[in-house]
């Protein structure tokens, strides 16, 4: 190009016009990623052009193909960053709400105590990285990495709105469920690998929990799928906007799903695998320092996914009734997630931990039949033509 002003290299084009645009609908994180790359890559291209005028690298940096590749990379970063911030805010919310319910002051660092999580992260980061001598090293590290990785992955898979997603696929909800159920297996591996009796028992309990709570959850998922006729999250949310939120016909399912979601994300009162009163820290006993910090982060990511599932399946996703799609549907979704998470925290403040045999009893004898009843209601409504 003859004229090499910076404006030549930085042009915010419509992402849909990009020849290699991977989606069929508008994607906001991709757009942000593309714009970021155009800013960043354009700047680099201009600088190179200043040094070596008329080179081909500059043009290559801002062409459609390269921009697309970097846009996807930056999009992943953006999605993770937003998920991370949501996560930190959830931790902050939990601390604040718990503090009020327990009649004590909660966090105090930073504005309204928001920076406490960062301080904790810094503190765990500074700690020495200790691994037990007799642990099974390979599984010890890999299981840890996979537990955290799977949790982060599944959190990133959750769409915040019709335009904020990482992949547009037909079986969206099923994949989230599948990844969500993967973690307990890895926890079992991690618990075994540490060569510690507490963590072994904790890992076994995690597996126990998964077996008894995955099935009611999937039965409830069936109810939602039957009502919508699609696995696609977008379809589910739109169907709820067109008809009514599924919490109204499936209130029973909502309650059962909420309990299952708490159990799946291993939070009090169902945090058997890390019951600190009897098992020290359960399966995390031998994971010290930043490993433990990352595990906690992964736990909260899973809690976020559980809340998001409740919101998508029963609370209308990012839509508000009568308002339709608001200008910022992502914020609506996040607000709903925080509301559901408030219930999680509330249960934690009010209830003690449930015992292993009781948890199996609740899972198989109460939640499972209720889930079947919920499914029957859904079928009846479908056959009656209400939905």
């Amino acid at each position, binding site marked *: 190009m003859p004229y090499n002003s910076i404006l030549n290299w930085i042009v915010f084009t419509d992402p849909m016009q990009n020849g290699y645009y991977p989606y069929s609908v508008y994607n906001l994180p991709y757009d942000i990623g593309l714009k970021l790359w155009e800013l960043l890559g354009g700047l680099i291209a201009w600088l190179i052009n200043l040094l070596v005028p008329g080179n081909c690298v500059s043009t290559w940096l801002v062409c459609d193909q390269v921009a697309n590749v970097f846009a996807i990379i930056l999009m992943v970063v953006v999605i993770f960053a937003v998920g991370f911030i949501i996560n930190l805010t959830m931790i902050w919310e939990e601390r604040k*709400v718990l*503090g*009020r*319910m*327990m*009649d*004590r*002051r909660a966090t*105090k660092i930073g504005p309204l105590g928001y920076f406490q999580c960062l301080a904790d992260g810094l503190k765990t980061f500074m700690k020495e990285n200790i691994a037990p001598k007799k642990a099974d090293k390979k599984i010890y590290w890999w299981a840890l990495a996979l537990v955290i990785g799977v949790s982060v992955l599944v959190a990133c898979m959750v769409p915040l709105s019709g335009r904020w997603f990482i992949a547009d696929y037909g079986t969206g909800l099923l994949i989230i469920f599948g990844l969500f159920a993967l973690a307990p297996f890895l926890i079992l591996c991690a618990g075994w690998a540490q060569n510690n009796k507490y963590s072994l028992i904790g890992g076994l309990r995690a597996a126990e929990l998964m077996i008894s709570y995955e099935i009611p959850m999937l039965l409830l998922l069936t109810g939602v799928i039957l009502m919508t006729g699609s696995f696609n999250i977008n379809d589910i949310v739109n169907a709820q906007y067109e008809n009514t939120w599924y919490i109204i016909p499936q209130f029973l399912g909502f309650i059962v799903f909420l309990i299952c979601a708490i159990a799946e994300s291993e939070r009090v009162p169902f945090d058997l695998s890390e019951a600190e009163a009897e098992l020290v820290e359960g399966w995390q006993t031998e994971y010290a320092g930043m490993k433990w910090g990352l595990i906690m982060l992964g736990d909260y990511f899973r809690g976020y996914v559980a809340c998001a599932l409740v919101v998508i399946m029963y609370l209308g996703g990012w839509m508000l009734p009568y308002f339709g799609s608001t200008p910022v549907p992502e914020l609506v979704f996040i607000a709903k997630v925080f509301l559901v998470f408030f219930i999680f925290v*509330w*249960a934690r*403040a*009010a*209830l003690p931990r449930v015992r292993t045999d009781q948890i199996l009893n609740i899972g198989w004898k109460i939640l499972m039949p209720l889930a079947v009843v919920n499914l029957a209601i859904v079928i009846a409504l479908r056959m009656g033509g209400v939905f």
Partner: protein
Amino acid sequence: MTYKYLDKYPKKFRGTGVLKPLWMTLKRMFKSTAHRPVTIMYPYEKEWVPDNYRGRPGLRFDRCLGCGICVRVCPTTCIKLVEVADDSGNMVKRPQVNIGRCMMCGYCAEYCPVDAMTTTTDYELAEFTREALIYDPRRLNFEGTNEMMEVHIEEHLLSNLAKGIEDKPTAFFDTDRPTLDASKCISCQKCAKVCPTHAITMVVVGQNDKGKDIKNPKIDNNLCVSCENCVIECPKSALKIKEVL
């Protein structure tokens, strides 16, 4: 008298057994949001303590006699008498307290006959070294000492109670006095030297075979604080504390 709690519990639950705690916590959340939570933000605000709080011991330097009762009653032996210069430059004996050993029992304040030792409301005693925990007599002074920080012994004599006298509280330093077994006394004058209140004067009671004066201690009961220094110092155990009960 009946049971207040056992009459109502145990209860039979009918499936709604978690609603009450959920409601209670929600109520408490609104309450503590509207009012202030009970937490005291410690370094910025401190809990109120009454004046009779038993913090570290305090010393009113001018009142102290240096009698050493506090040294002897201290259960952890953290008090030591050291020589320091008083305001006019004379060397006097005053207690020095090792706060690192102190268990804040308040015995030194309680047994002090002149209330020179007091309890104080000072409880922030952390230091960087062990040496800094040793409080010398001047440092033991506490600014806001008032009469509520004094601990008095108000004992009643059993003999008085038997007689029906119930309004004469006393303490050991008012009643217990050393008594002399004159046959054991060797006129060494040690008791007179160690007496912190100069209550002991040596008086001549006679002459021995060689014509020297026999001096026996004479104890001024008004000045004596029953500190037992003379009893401990006496080489022939001629002096004994006579307890009045």
